[in-house]
């Protein structure tokens, strides 16, 4: 399995992603944002960070990076694309995912472990999880409040494209367990063809017991299982 971690100027979770992917057995390359091709990979990860200093809007400038044209092409061909935190913002800005991420409700940069409820497992990124499973994964963002218009929200819900929501330890969602004001506690969504996934929390930071949680591993286990099945078929 081959994975690419895209590096933008200002990416800062690229090494964490690289480390975890390698641990899971992916032959992993860094791909610089000025490259014009990211072809030949089974998985493309857009890591967290502050691409281009978050100038203008988070992810707005990264979207016009040379490499993003190729990421969009690969996504349209069905390659798995996962955007974490700033990567999620870039996916929304580039139109691969609907909606947008705006300033947190209380304006604070929030860096803490949160609980996520798995709402859908019919996708390559959480196929190894259980619906209703509660995961302990950290967030670290200032602009992670997901928003979308009513029609988009309705189709996300109807098509089971909200994969994870912020919740309490019992899986209950609501205002009290919504760290950033995201619409309906949305923490991560996928596209209509279910091969592009963006989420604000950082699963790569929850893959080692020393870091306080290993609940992030299920995302990478799911991806591996999905790709393994695809290869065997």
């Amino acid at each position, binding site marked *: 399995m081959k994975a690419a971690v895209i590096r933008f100027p200002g990416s800062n979770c690229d090494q964490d992603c690289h480390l975890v992917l390698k641990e899971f057995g992916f032959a992993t390359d860094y791909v610089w944002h000025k490259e014009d091709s990211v072809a030949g990979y089974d998985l493309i990860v857009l890591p967290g960070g502050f691409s281009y200093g978050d100038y*203008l*809007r988070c992810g707005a400038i990264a979207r016009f990076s040379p490499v993003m044209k190729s990421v969009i092409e690969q996504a349209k061909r069905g390659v798995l694309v996962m955007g974490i935190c700033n990567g999620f913002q870039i996916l*929304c*800005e580039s139109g691969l995912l609907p*909606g947008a991420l*705006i300033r947190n*409700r209380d*304006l604070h940069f929030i860096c803490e472990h949160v609980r996520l409820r798995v709402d859908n497992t019919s996708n390559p990124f959480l196929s190894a999880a259980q619906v209703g499973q509660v995961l302990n994964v950290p967030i670290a963002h200032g602009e992670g409040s997901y*928003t979308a*218009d009513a029609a988009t929200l309705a189709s996300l819900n109807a098509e089971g494209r909200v994969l994870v929501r912020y919740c309490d330890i019992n899986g209950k969602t609501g205002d009290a367990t919504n760290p950033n004001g995201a619409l309906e506690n949305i923490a991560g969504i996928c596209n209509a063809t279910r091969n592009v996934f963006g989420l604000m929390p950082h699963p790569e930071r929850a893959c080692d017991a020393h870091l306080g949680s290993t609940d992030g591993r299920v995302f990478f286990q799911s991806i591996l299982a999905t790709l393994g099945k695809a290869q065997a078929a």
Partner: protein
Amino acid sequence: MKAKVIVMPKRSILDPQGVAVRDAMRHHGLPGAQSARVGKMIELEVGGATEAQLHEIARDLLSNPVVEDYELVIEK
């Protein structure tokens, strides 16, 4: 050509910065402060561009139509 692009959060989107500014105005002795909204203004100097091209830039790069509206003011 000189132009200004004014980008504002859509009315339907909660603007937490605006709320914080409004609250600060109240704390500064203006209890009647009802609303404040925070956007941005971008000044451009561009050679050889049409108005349509500037609209395209304002829509696709300078603003995010999902959450923001823009106004393009061409100065000369």
